[in-house]
Structure formats: structure tokens, C-alpha cells
């Protein structure tokens, strides 16, 4: 079995509009890679973590937790990330406390442009590029479940913005490190998740352009909740005109085909406008969105990759 290029990266970033299924895709990619024997860490940088719950596990919180063999997740939150990150630079807990945990510094840290994004991205970067045990990197693959579109782009461009303001000190040095990892197509891939609907598709097109403009290596665009057509136009016409006995079946078939038509339409629109491979992820009719559904999504993604 050849390994999909996407799963051989060091860092895979999953971006997209809210509600398109970024966490689902992140979890599925993690599962696919873990099954190939890779040690995977999924970093969730959103307000509420979801991935652990998909696998029926309690929230990981800010401590790395194992979800399945080889698959781990962590919820990256600004305050804890700040502490970890600052301690790495400053080394002494006492000085950290004096400098960072006094009321003045709290305000100062709130004012520093995007400092919370910086430390969160910094943590992800550290796991991807520096976190090692016994001389070997601890993670084969780090997956970043990034914030929604507008915030996602802000998040990834934070090193760029910061370096425009500050170009000295340990933080600036690390920002350079993050920037070069995020720009290296051999090590990093930035994916987009969207839905076959007008506004998500349009946002995906804008996001694709913005990501390319900033030089992030383009990963696939996952077209989530994809409906494949089930009925030919002739069948549909017959069934919808089939009289009262087929009213329910006709409406169901018509609903299904209208969603399939949207899927095909926006698939086409995206193929025209976006300069990255498009992977449809089928819609799964699950009563409970759990490990089974993630497994189905993972298999669908693997076969498409």
C-alpha cells in the first residue's frame, strides 16, 4: 500500500468555514495515519474540543491523551500555551510568575497583538518540529484543526504580522521557524474543508486564493457531505409523477437528487476556481456521529487520496 503524500507530512493544517466538518476531517486524517502505524497528534485550536468525543473519550483538555493506539489529541488553549511557551524561553517558574502572572502583565499580554494566537501556533509548531524523546521526534504527524475561515487565516499569518512589528528576541526567532515550516511543501500541507453549498463554496474559493497568496503549500480541498446521485432523471420524473402511493418516495428521491445536483454543481464550480485537488467526502446517514462515522470518513478519504 503506497502512502498518500498528505499523510507523510510533518504538519497538516485543516482550515475552512465553521460548520463544514473540519474536526471530522482532522479526526479522520488522524485515524487514517494512525492505522498506517504513524504516531499522530491532533491539535484542536478551537473554542470547544470535539475530536476526543468522536472516539467516545472524555475531553483531552490541555494534556495530551491517547484516543486509540497511535492517535492522540490535545486542546490548545491560550493561557496554558502561554505558560508552557514562556517557561521554555524563561526557564524559571518564579520569574515566569512574577513577570507573567501579575495583573499588569495580564493586561499587557492581552494588548500584545495576537499573542494568544502566537503561543498557540507556537505550541503546535513545537510538537511538529521540536518535541522529541530519546533523540527522535515524538510525533510522525501533527494535525492542526485550525479556527474557522477568517480567524483561520489570521491564525496562520500571525508570524508574518508579528515579524512586521518585532524582529528581535526569542519569540521573533521562533516565528521565523514557524513561518518556514508553514511554507515548506515537503513538511507541511494546508487543506481546506467545505460543503457543496453556495456560501461555503465561495468562502473556500476566497480562502484558497488567500492561502496561496501567502505561500502556504496547498493540500486537498475536502468537499464534505457530498451526495452522489441515486436516480436517473427519467426515474425521478416517473416516481414524482407516480401518484399518491409514491408521494413520500417521490419527495425523498427529489430531495436526494436536489442535494446531489448541488454537490455536482459546486464540485464543478470549485474545480474551475480552486488550484488544488478536490476530494469529495460522502455524506453518511448516521444516527450518532461517533467512531464508526469517523472510520467511514477515514476510509473514504484514504481511497480518494
Amino acid at each position: 500500500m503506497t502512502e498518500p503524500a498528505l499523510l507523510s507530512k510533518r504538519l497538516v493544517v485543516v482550515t475552512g468555514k465553521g460548520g463544514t466538518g473540519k474536526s471530522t476531517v482532522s479526526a479522520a486524517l488522524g485515524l487514517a495515519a494512525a492505522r498506517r502505524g504513524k504516531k499522530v497528534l491532533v491539535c484542536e485550536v478551537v473554542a470547544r474540543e470535539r475530536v476526543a468525543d468522536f472516539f467516545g473519550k472524555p475531553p483531552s483538555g490541555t494534556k495530551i491523551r491517547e484516543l486509540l493506539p497511535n492517535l492522540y489529541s490535545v486542546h490548545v488553549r491560550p493561557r496554558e500555551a502561554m505558560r508552557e511557551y514562556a517557561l521554555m524561553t524563561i526557564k524559571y517558574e518564579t520569574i515566569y510568575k512574577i513577570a507573567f502572572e501579575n495583573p499588569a502583565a495580564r493586561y499587557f499580554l492581552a494588548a500584545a497583538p495576537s499573542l494568544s494566537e502566537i503561543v498557540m501556533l507556537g505550541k503546535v509548531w513545537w510538537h511538529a518540529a521540536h518535541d522529541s524523546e530519546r533523540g527522535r521526534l515524538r510525533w510522525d504527524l501533527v494535525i492542526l484543526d485550525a479556527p474557522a475561515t477568517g480567524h483561520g487565516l489570521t491564525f496562520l499569518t500571525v508570524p508574518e504580522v508579528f515579524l512586521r512589528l518585532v524582529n528581535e528576541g526569542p519569540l521573533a526567532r521562533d516565528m521565523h521557524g514557524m513561518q518556514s515550516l508553514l511554507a515548506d511543501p515537503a513538511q507541511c500541507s494546508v487543506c481546506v474543508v467545505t460543503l457543496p453549498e453556495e456560501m461555503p463554496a465561495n468562502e473556500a474559493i476566497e480562502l484558497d486564493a488567500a492561502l496561496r497568496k501567502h505561500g502556504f503549500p496547498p493540500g486537498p480541498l475536502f468537499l464534505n457531505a457530498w451526495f452522489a446521485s441515486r436516480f436517473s432523471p427519467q426515474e425521478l420524473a416517473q416516481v414524482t409523477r407516480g401518484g399518491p402511493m409514491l408521494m413520500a418516495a417521490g419527495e425523498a428521491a427529489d430531495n436526494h437528487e436536489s442535494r446531489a445536483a448541488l454537490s455536482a454543481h459546486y464540485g464543478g464550480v470549485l474545480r474551475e476556481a480552486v488550484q488544488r485537488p478536490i476530494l469529495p467526502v460522502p455524506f453518511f446517514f448516521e444516527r450518532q456521529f461517533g467512531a464508526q462515522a469517523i472510520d467511514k470518513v477515514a476510509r473514504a478519504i484514504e481511497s480518494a487520496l
Partner: protein
Amino acid sequence: MKPLIEVLRGRKIICCVGSGGVGKTTTAAAIALREAMDGKKVLVLTIDPARRLANSLGLRELGNEETRIDPEMFSRAGLTPRGEMWAMMLDLKHTWDELVRMQARTAQQAEAILANKLYQTLSTAMAGSLEYMAMEKVYEVHTSRRFDVVILDTPPTTNALDFLHAAARILDVLDNNAMKIVLGPMMKAGKFGLKLLAAPSGLVLRTLSRFTGSDFLRDLAGFMMAFEGMYEGFKARATRVKALLTSRDAAFVLVTSPNPLTIEEALFFHKALADDAIQTAAVIVNRVQRDPRRHGGPDTLSALQEALQLAQIKDAGAPLLSERLSQTLTDQAALADLDRRQVERLRTTLHGVPLFSVPRLRKDVHDLAGLWQIDGYLGENGGD
């Protein structure tokens, strides 16, 4: 049950809140359309960086300017509004600049702030900035009395808590005594007219500067100096904005989809509003799957095969047409069941809040005709 338009009667500011991807912008635009049809001069204000509203109104560009929706678009949709519908997309930086110019004591002070490198980043990148400026813009438009009703399409729920507190938090940062003490030596040096502010001194400042570099601290000290004397004006205004939004003039409409995660976020938001003593005026659930079985008729495989036979439709293909129909009915019934349970959960928890359920439409809404179709579900039967 009262139609939504009745529920919102007399409100001059309507904030549509909820998580991302639930159709907030479309809902805001549908409410605006209805207000315009009923004779109001209405402005819908979106603050989303992507051009959602522009998309749904068929507008190409939507700058920081109030743009009237072309009456031609209404007639194309077969609609004759008695009022006017306007739209605007918030330009974050521009709104900050306007506010600074308004509050500065002298033009010189305004220029000093606008030119500060840190201000430029702060105004666009600081968390809560978007929320603060959206509120500011709503206030500005409201007090200008240019419109009868202003409808605000807010950013996703994850920022929602910031919404009413963003201004206070940002202003706290700008006017913080503790910070002034820390930065004091640098600010003092600046006051004596030294071109270059003093180097950071003291343990706290030195440690922080190892983390951020001293340039940043200089910019910060410079910024705080430039801002001095302006806080009071900013604060007084922010207090008035908040008072307006918590008054009877404003209404909050919670928008969600039947997805369990977004329902949870909606409940979370409802609670956050309640903590500020704000009642949720109405809740709108978008994209609810309707159950095709409500029509009755056969839904088992054998009954479907019989029905096809009776209708003289050939049961062919692989899998057979009857099998595919049966599967499709099962799939959609499952989705409808899921949605129904979620809507009921919401209805029970938000007891007494008018709830409107908008079915998943066959096509995307991207014009006035589509928005008008949505309005049809915001009537007295709550979409059922």
C-alpha cells in the same frame, strides 16, 4: 403564535447571533427584507470578513458604505417593497479610525495614534476588536436616525461572549494603571521629548522584553501616551452602546441549525445573554429536514415494489429502483428524526421563546426571491 415580524415589532436594533454556518446572514437578510416590504427603511450590517451578505443579496461589492439594494432587484423577484432595504459590510480599520478622530482632543492627537504601528495592528488584529466596532457602528447608525431598523449579522458564537464585553475589555487594556506603572519609566522618557524612548528597565519589563523584544514595548508605551486623556470619552460612549443594546430598543434573535453541536452552542449563547439580563426574542432553526413519510404511503421494500408495479414504473437498475427508493426514504426519515429531536430539545429548554423552524430548501438562497421564501416560514405557524 405571533409571526416573527410581530415579535420584533417596535425594535430598532435586531442582532442575529449564533454559530458559524447556520445561515445567520441569510436570516438577517430575510428579516431585513420583510421589514422593507412592510414600509421600513432598514439597514442590514454584516461584519463577516467573507462576503456572505453580498452573495445573498446579489451585490458584487459591499464596502463600508451603506448601499441601497437596487429596486430593480425587487421587481425581478416580483416584490414591491413599501420601504427601503440597505446593506453594509463593516470595515474594521475604518470604523476604528473614525472613532479615534471623533474622540481625539486635537487633530494632532488623532494623527499620532493613527500613525502608531501598534495601533494599526491592534485595531485590526486584537481579539474582540470586530465585536467592539460592530457595536460601535450599530450605535452610530442608530443615533444618526438614518434608518428605522438596523439588523446586525454577528460573528460566530465562539466570539459571542465577547460581544457585549469586548469594548470594556479593550478599554481596560488601554487604560490600565498597573500597565502604566510598568511602562512608566519608558513613558516618562517619552514625555520629555526624547525621540527614542528609554530602554525597558525593572525585572518585569526586562523579562517581558526578552519574550517580545523591546521594540514592542516602545510601541506600546508610545501608544499609551498618545491615548492619554481619551479613555473617558471612549468609556462613556461604550457604556451608552451597551445600554442601548440591553434596552427594549434592541432584540436578539438566536439562529441555529438542527446539528446537535450548534444547538448546544445556541443554548450556551442563550445563557450568556440571560447572564446580561437580555431575553432571547426568538430562535430560528434553519435547514430542518422534513420527513417524507408525513405523506403516508408505502415505505417498506415490498410495498414500494407493489406501488411501482401499480404505477407501471419499471423496477430496474442495480440496485433496483425500489431498493434505492427504500434506502432513500430510510435515510431521510433518519435525518428528519434526528432533526426533530434536536428541535424539540431546543423548544423545551428555551421554554416560552418563539421558535421558527425553516426547512431545508431545495436550492441555495442567493436572491431576494429566496429570502422571501424564507419569510414564509417565519409566520404564525412557526414553519410547521
